[in-house]
C-alpha cells in the first residue's frame, strides 16, 4: 500500500521535475532561506568540534600591527558625507522602485505614460543638479 504510493510519487517526481502543482511559488523561497540558514549555522556549530581554542591576551587584542591601539574605542563620530550619501540614496532608490512597474507595463500605457514619467524624471533631475551644484556629490 504505502510502497505503491511512494513508487507512484517517485515516478511523478522524475517525470514532472520542474512543475509545482499545489504549493505557492514563494514556498520554495522560504525553504531555500531555511536551507541557507541551516547551512551557515550548521557549519559554524560543526567547526566548534574541530577547532583548537587557545586564546591569550596578545591574540585577542585589536589588530594594529602588533602595538596597543592608539584609539581603544573606534565607535566615535564619523564623516557627515556618509549621511549625505545615505539621504541621496533613499531619494533615488524610491525612484527606481517607481520605475520598475512603469517599465513592465510600458507597452500598455504608451505615450501618456512615457510623458508622465518624463515629467517625474525631470523634477528629480532638477533636485539632482541642485545637489550637484551645491557640492553634495563632492568627496574631498
Amino acid at each position, binding site marked *: 500500500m504505502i510502497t505503491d504510493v511512494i513508487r507512484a510519487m517517485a515516478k511523478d517526481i522524475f517525470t514532472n521535475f*520542474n512543475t509545482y502543482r499545489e504549493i505557492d511559488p514563494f514556498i520554495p523561497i522560504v525553504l*531555500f532561506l531555511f536551507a541557507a540558514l541551516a547551512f551557515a549555522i550548521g557549519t559554524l556549530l560543526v567547526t566548534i568540534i574541530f577547532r583548537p581554542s587557545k586564546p591569550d591576551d596578545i591574540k585577542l587584542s585589536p589588530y594594529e600591527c602588533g602595538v596597543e*591601539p592608539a584609539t581603544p574605542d573606534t565607535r566615535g563620530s564619523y564623516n557627515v558625507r556618509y549621511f549625505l550619501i545615505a539621504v541621496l540614496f533613499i531619494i533615488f532608490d524610491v525612484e527606481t522602485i517607481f520605475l520598475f512597474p512603469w517599465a*513592465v507595463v510600458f507597452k500598455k500605457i504608451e505615450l501618456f505614460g512615457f510623458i508622465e514619467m518624463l515629467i517625474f524624471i525631470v523634477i528629480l533631475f532638477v533636485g*539632482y543638479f541642485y545637489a550637484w551644484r551645491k557640492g553634495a*556629490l563632492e568627496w574631498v
Partner: protein
Amino acid sequence: MEGIVRDVIIALIKIAIVLGGVALGVAYSTYLERKVAGWIQVRFGPMRVGPHGLLQPIADGLKLFIKEDIMPRQADKLIFYLSPVICLVPAFAVLAVIPWGPDFYITDLNIGLLYIFAVASLGIFGIVMAGWASNSKYPMLGGLRSAAQMVSYEVSLGLSVIGALIFAESLSMVGIVEKQMTTGVWFVFLQPVGFVIYFICGLAETNRLPFDLPEAEQELVAGFHTEYSAMKFAFFFLAEYTNMIVVSSIATTVFLGGWGSPFAFLGIEFPRSLGIVKSVLDFGMPIFWFLLKVFLLMFFMIWVRWTFPRYRYDQLMNIGWKVLLPFAILNIIFSGLEFTLYEELDWYLFYPLAWLIMGVMVVFGFRLIKNFDQFSYSKMREEGIE
C-alpha cells in the same frame, strides 16, 4: 496532502543541487582566480595539491574549517557572530530565482528581478555590522566605505536594467529569457549602454577591483574582515564569490539571452532518432550555455581585477554619482524612444538608427557632464563652499 509532499520533495532536491553546485562553483572560482592571476603574471599559480593544483580549493576549505576562531576582546560578541551569516544568507537566497535552464530553476516568481534586488542589498548589513562589531580601526573604516559604495552603486544598478525591462515586459526571470527567445534578439544588442552600466555597478557591488576600496589591502589591511578568522572569514569569502556568480547570472539572464544558445538562429535541433540521448541533451544543453556565459563573465571580472589599478575613493564616488547615474537615467528615456522605434520600423532601419542615437547620447552625455561639473566647481569657488 500528497501533492504538497511531492512539491516539497522536489523543491528540496533542487535546493540541494543548487546549494551544492554553487558551493563547489565558488570553491573552484577561487582556483580560477588564482590560476588566471598566475597566467597574467607569467607564473604557474597553485600547482602542488593534486594535478595542476586541482585539489587546492578543498585543501583551503579544510584548513579554514579546523583553524582557531579568534574573538577579539573588544568586539560585540553577538553581532560579531551574526554578521558573516547575514552576509552569506542573502547571497545564497538570491539563487532561488535564477533560471539555470528551461527545465531547471527552483522557483519562478512573477516579481523575480525585484526580489533579487531587494534581497541582494541586505548583504550590506552584514558588512557594516562586521565593521562595527569588530570595534577596531581598519574594519570600521572598511565597513563605512563599503556601505557608502554599495549604496551609491545600487541606484545605478537598479536603473540600468529598466531599459531591458521595457522590452521584456515582465519581471519574472523565466519570462525575461523567454521573451529573448521568442523575439530572437538578446537585450544586450538593444541595451548596450544598460549592459555596460550594469556590469560596472556589478563590479562595485561585489567589492571587486577596480572598486575594492572596502578591503584595500595597502591601506586597510583587509577592510571589514580584518578581525575575522577561520570559518567566519570563509563565510565572507563565500559570500563575495557567490555574489560574483549572482551578478554574472543576472547579467546573463537579462542581457545575454539566459539559457539560449548563441547558435539558435541556425535553427538546429537534436534529431528524434537519438531517443533518450535527445531528452538528456534537451535538458542539459541550455544549462551548459547558461553556465558557459556565467563563466565567461566571471572570467572577465577576474581579468579586470588583475589588469586595472584601484580607483581613489573620490574617483569612485564621482563615477557612481556623476557618470553612471545620469547615464542610467538618460538610458531609460532613450529606451522609451527605442521601444517605439522597435515597434514601428523594420530591423535594417531600426538597428542603425538606434545605435546612432545611442552614440550621440553617449558623446553628448559625457560633454554635458564635464561642462556641468566645471560650471558647478567654478560657482562653488565663487561662493567659497568647496
